[in-house]
């Protein structure tokens, strides 16, 4: 399931709902992305996330389908927020559930790597020097590329 929303989410409630009623599930893995208060050497007082409505949901759904194709997953959840956020706020939740832990852990890692380089979101930071757009990181591209050679 994919959700793109302005509102915060309740991690405990979301994870509980993901596995509720399905006793085939033996493990739930999750990743939560938070707003840092530092960007490089500058203090960040706020972060604004812009996205491309329509394409965002389309790309996230494609990533979810690909995760299901690669691993035996019982449930996938991606929640990504947009709008203005403060340091410490939650940005993203990726959660996966499967009969055994390995698939859940690996698929969760895959999903966040792909999301970071494929889903059309952009971050802008408020710093003492003014507002600035966050640059993409070569490490993120490399992290996504390594999955193309794996199942």
């Amino acid at each position, binding site marked *: 399931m994919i959700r793109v929303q302005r509102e915060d989410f309740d991690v405990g409630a979301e994870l509980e709902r993901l596995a509720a009623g399905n006793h085939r599930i033996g493990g739930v893995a999750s990743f939560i992305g938070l707003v840092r208060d530092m960007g490089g050497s500058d203090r960040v007082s706020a972060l604004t*996330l812009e996205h491309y409505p*329509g394409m965002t949901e389309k790309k996230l759904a494609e990533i979810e389908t690909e995760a299901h194709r690669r691993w035996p997953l019982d449930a996938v959840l991606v929640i990504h927020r947009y709008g203005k956020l403060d340091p410490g706020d939650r940005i993203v939740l990726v959660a996966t559930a499967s009969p055994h832990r390995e698939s859940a852990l690996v698929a969760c890692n895959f999903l966040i790597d792909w*999301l*970071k380089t494929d*889903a*059309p979101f*952009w*971050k802008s930071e408020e710093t003492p020097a003014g507002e600035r757009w966050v640059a993409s990181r070569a490490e*993120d591209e490399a992290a996504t590329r390594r999955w193309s050679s794996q199942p």
Partner: protein
Amino acid sequence: MTALDRGRPARNAGQRPAVPIKLLYFAWLRARIGCAEEEIDLSPDVRDVAGLLDWLRSRGGGYAEALRDLSVVRVAVNQDYVGREHPLREGDEVAIFPPVTGG
């Protein structure tokens, strides 16, 4: 004359009819260009993404500044990533944006 009219390429009489497309800009590309979306009639001699980017740059001002370094420009047509050789057709939604930074 509206801001949109000024941006329209001259129609090329006797050639293929102009191709209407929708353009979307995001993040710092939107900020530098100074608008989030616009509709244009593509000149018949602009056939693909590379041609569109060249034509946009030729408009000068914020367009030329935003598109100066095409290595940091990504393009999606109808919400899928495409390469520079991707052909453009009537009614396409073409989004132009920097590398993504979500997650």
